[in-house]
């Protein structure tokens, strides 16, 4: 017991002095668990997020847009890979994590349970969803767990490129034909509020926040990050000539921030609980891909085993 207390004190002091915790360092079980939860959810979000965007690859309106989108969705798959690898350093396997995703035990970002109904949604996702993700993720580059922090450095570089390409799509649409501008406005109307929900519940009702702040897994509160996002994005919407769908949105001279209207938390809870427009389809698509791929993965494993056997028998013969 005392030994554990010493270890814990040392761990806390280490974190307090802004040093990184590495895979082989001692860490409290709760710290390990919370990181596994957060990193695997983050990886799942990247993988599920491929679906709504992938939905438009085959219909992208020019070959240039098609290659950019294909490259972007491929980046998301790459992020999923490094995040699964970062989580594996904490002693969980990719199979276990995927299983938790497929059975609904582990969550992913709720934003991906909304449908992409038009090409403009690809712009809105890059601009708003990736924009909100960057707000959340840049502070994670300094998170106390080394492998996660390092994975996030690369993820954030790519995400910031994604955000710019999304804005560029919106800019093209806004300067395009009236039907294109209308498409852009419609996408903003549908993605604005779900993007604000991406920062999570208000600080007063956030259940993981306090401990995570102390452990330097989290560095800013949900509400702080949401406010930063609104402050950054509203002028961009003005530049696009689009209207943010919030009648209460107002620049507040006194606070130096935008005031914005109340978020519909019951919608958020519904989507988190599995009742969003695409929850069922997203998981079904993922599970089907996994099941359809089982014979391929089995074949690869069987072939690898045979090859190893042949190599071993050749060595022993020699």
């Amino acid at each position: 017991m005392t030994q554990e207390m010493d270890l814990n004190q040392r761990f806390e002091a280490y974190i307090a002095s802004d040093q990184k915790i590495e895979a082989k360092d001692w860490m409290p079980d709760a710290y390990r668990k919370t990181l596994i939860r957060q990193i695997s959810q983050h990886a799942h979000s990247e993988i599920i997020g491929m679906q709504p965007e992938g939905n438009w690859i085959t219909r992208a309106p020019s070959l240039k847009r098609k290659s950019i989108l294909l490259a972007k969705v491929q980046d998301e798959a790459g992020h999923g890979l490094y995040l699964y690898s970062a989580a594996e350093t904490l002693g969980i396997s990719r199979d276990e994590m995927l299983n938790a995703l497929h059975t609904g035990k582990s969550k992913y970002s709720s934003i991906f349970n909304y449908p992409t109904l038009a090409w403009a949604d690809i712009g809105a996702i890059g601009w708003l969803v990736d924009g909100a993700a960057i707000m959340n993720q840049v502070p994670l580059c300094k998170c106390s767990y080394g492998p996660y922090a390092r994975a996030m450095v690369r993820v954030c570089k790519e995400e910031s490129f994604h955000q710019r390409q999304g804005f560029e799509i919106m800019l093209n649409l806004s300067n395009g034909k009236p039907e294109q501008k209308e498409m852009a406005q419609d996408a903003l109307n549908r993605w604005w509020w779900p993007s604000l929900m991406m920062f999570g519940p208000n600080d007063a009702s956030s259940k993981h926040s306090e401990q995570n702040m102390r452990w330097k897994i989290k560095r800013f509160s949900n509400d702080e990050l949401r406010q930063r996002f609104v402050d950054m994005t509203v002028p961009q919407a003005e530049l696009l000539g689009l209207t943010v769908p919030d009648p209460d949105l107002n620049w507040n001279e006194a606070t130096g921030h935008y005031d914005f209207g109340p978020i519909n938390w019951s919608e958020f809870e519904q989507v988190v609980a599995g009742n969003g427009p695409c929850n069922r389809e997203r998981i079904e698509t993922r599970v089907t891909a996994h099941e359809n791929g089982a014979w391929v993965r089995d074949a690869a494993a069987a072939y690898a085993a045979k090859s190893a056997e042949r190599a071993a028998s050749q060595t022993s013969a020699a």
Partner: protein
Amino acid sequence: MADQEHEWILRLGDDALVLAQRLSEWCSHGPALEEDIALSNIALDLLGQARALLTLAGQREGLGRDEDALAYFRTDREFRNALLVELPNGDFGDTIVRQMLFDQFAVLRYEALASQTVDLELAAIAAKALKEVRYHAAHSAQWVVRLGDGTEESHRRVQESLNMLWPYTAELFEDDAVSKACNEAGVLPLNASFTARWTEQVRAILEEATLTCPESTALLTGGRSGRHTEHLSYMLAEMQVLQRTYPGAEW
């Protein structure tokens, strides 16, 4: 010759574009995350090749059509790809066998194009593409071997894929007035001249994969002259929908 040349480059470009479109349908449906990334990557390379080739084809044609005009505003009857690349993806075995059969051909064709000195622009595109398709060829051949020599189920499935796809391969080696004109101009040898090396290489892969090379001599053809399978028109309807709905819009 100018007409024939434009027509010839379209064939190359359409092979790449149509296969890229098919492979991109795999995105988020792959058997493992690594393979999802690999298939997207191959699609991306092919799309890059298609863009360069269609741009060049449009320039040679001289009617002011760019890559998008050619990709989005031609009907299925105007596409010049081989039937093999437009076939639906099927399961992963079908996709990877189709890829192997095509990659082995693409390497030979680009090698020849990269080494000729009659059409330097085409040679430059081919030299870049050759590096890419060599990777694709290694990747698809490895998978065919793994699946053929993997489990009983994978062996059975991939043999079926091979039997189903084999009749579409002969089209790759057909010659007509266009390919003959290109040969005479010194841009590219006749398609038939690739048959022996292709057959030798494919047979070597199939042998390592413990698969049986089909004996079928059936010949399903028509793509080069715009007579396609039922599948291409659906593919184009999906691919072209936004351009056709909002003609003249910039994206």
